[in-house]
């Protein structure tokens, strides 16, 4: 009984961690630009696929080097995506930009499909296939890597946004882009850094979970959707809301899968989101837009 509960909790948190990483990426970009970046899931795919390619397929790099190289490459892809596709179209209006991100996701997926193929890729868990026993549940060591990394990343992001000048400038840009420009913040740089950060977070998520879930050229579609759902649930425009939203979403899925039926887990998760959004349109931790005159 307790063992089941612990087991579902662990698997829900692990699953939720990836939604959280993707969701934070959505929130960071939305904050800086009001753009919903539907290419977000593709960076998860890129992180996992590139690591697998560099380590498993070709053996070019040891795993401890393949991981940072893959994340760096995905980050560069994120920056390139911003510079080549978003920045030139900046004046085109929000709807156009969002459609461009959908185009970008199709392109990234297509490139990987053509170059690396359609099969599934994997690489071994970082600490081997060992399990840890907690409260009767058997937790894969990779899950601990996922959760530990998520905790560190969340702490680093908090520090970045709360304590550094550039992090504060990014928040200021989200709150009032015009005022940010007027105090001399280069808002282009803020956008560039948001795309880089979001891509890096996604790629990190892909790297961490690939040993558990495997990866394929098209996993970005579903993960992007789940990450977006996590952001909506937590409150669009709040990275830490997205973090909580992701974990909640993962837990709901795991408990539904465990106690009800795995066939219903997605349906119940999305039902939960719909309900939350009907009761609190701003999300669990979002703030309703309010102007003081």
């Amino acid at each position, binding site marked *: 009984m307790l063992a089941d509960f612990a087991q579902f909790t662990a698997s829900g948190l692990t699953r939720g961690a990836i939604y959280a990483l993707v969701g934070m990426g959505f929130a960071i970009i939305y904050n800086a630009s009001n753009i919903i970046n539907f290419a977000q899931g593709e960076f998860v795919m890129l992180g996992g696929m590139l690591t697998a390619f560099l380590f498993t397929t070709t053996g070019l790099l040891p795993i401890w080097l393949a991981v940072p190289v893959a994340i760096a490459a995905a980050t560069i892809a994120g920056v390139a995506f911003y510079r080549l596709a978003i920045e030139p179209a900046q004046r085109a209006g929000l709807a156009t930009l969002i459609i461009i991100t959908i185009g970008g996701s199709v392109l990234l997926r297509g490139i990987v499909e053509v170059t690396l193929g359609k099969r599934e890729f994997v690489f071994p868990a970082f600490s081997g296939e060992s399990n840890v026993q907690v409260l009767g549940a058997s937790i894969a060591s990779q899950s601990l890597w996922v959760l530990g990394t998520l905790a560190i990343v969340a702490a680093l992001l908090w520090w970045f946004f709360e304590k550094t000048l550039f992090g504060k400038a990014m928040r200021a840009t989200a709150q009032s882009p015009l005022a940010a420009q007027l105090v*001399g913040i280069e808002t282009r740089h803020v956008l560039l850094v948001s795309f880089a950060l979001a891509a890096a977070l996604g790629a990190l998520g892909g790297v961490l979970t690939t040993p558990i879930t495997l990866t394929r050229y098209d996993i970005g579609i579903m993960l992007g959707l789940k990450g977006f759902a996590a952001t909506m649930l937590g409150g669009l425009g709040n990275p830490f809301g997205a973090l909580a939203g992701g974990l909640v979403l993962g837990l709901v899925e795991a408990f539904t899968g465990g106690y009800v039926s795995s066939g219903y887990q997605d349906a119940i998760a999305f039902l939960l989101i719909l309900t939350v959004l009907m009761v609190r349109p701003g999300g669990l931790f979002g703030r309703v837009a309010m102007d003081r005159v």
Partner: protein
Amino acid sequence: MSAVPLLQVQDLSSSYGRIRVLSTVSLEIGRGELVALVGSNGAGKTTLLRCLSGVQPIDGGTIRFGGHDINHLRASERVALGIAQVPEGRLVFPQLTIEDNLLLGGYGRNRATVSAGFTRAYAMFPILAERRRQLAGTLSGGQQQMLALGRALMSAPKLLLLDEPSMGLAPVVVERIFDIIDELRASGTTILLVEQNANAALALADRGYVIETGRIVLAGDGLDLLEDRRVQEAYLGV
């Protein structure tokens, strides 16, 4: 040093889409001057300030700052040169603390400038020092205006652009804001003051311009404009 005015605007035009908002506007501001720009709602005052700050594209004309053409400079580069603006509606960063709002006002400045800026802002507005850890969104309108002013001053600007600093504030607060503007002028800051409150603005200013549907229609000393029949009829309700 030289007789070159700090700011020279020549034949400036700007539009929103197809609607021309400024047509061939020319004006000058000398070093240390307080110049008022008055006009009714929609006359183009805010647009002019946005053009000067580089956040609104221009169709034609030139803007010279300290004798140099700054047309091609980005907003951040103009701030670096010494042009700061207190925007209409204040636009403080509501979810940041007062301290962080001020800190960002000194974005890109060196440590010494920023620390001098803090000292000055807190001396000028003790209420901001008291509440430095509070979120800016929790301040009253008048306090937010003080914060917006303090934020703009953090960059130690050579030219301060003030857009409707009295808007929506209680009369006693308006008086305080105008006192502060007077003090800033006395301390040597060059100021372009945009106001609907033409009476107060012209009474305070060295010189003034009257703008109507995107054109400068009158220019002169502040007090002369204040007594001008046309200005009185149009803006002072006399």
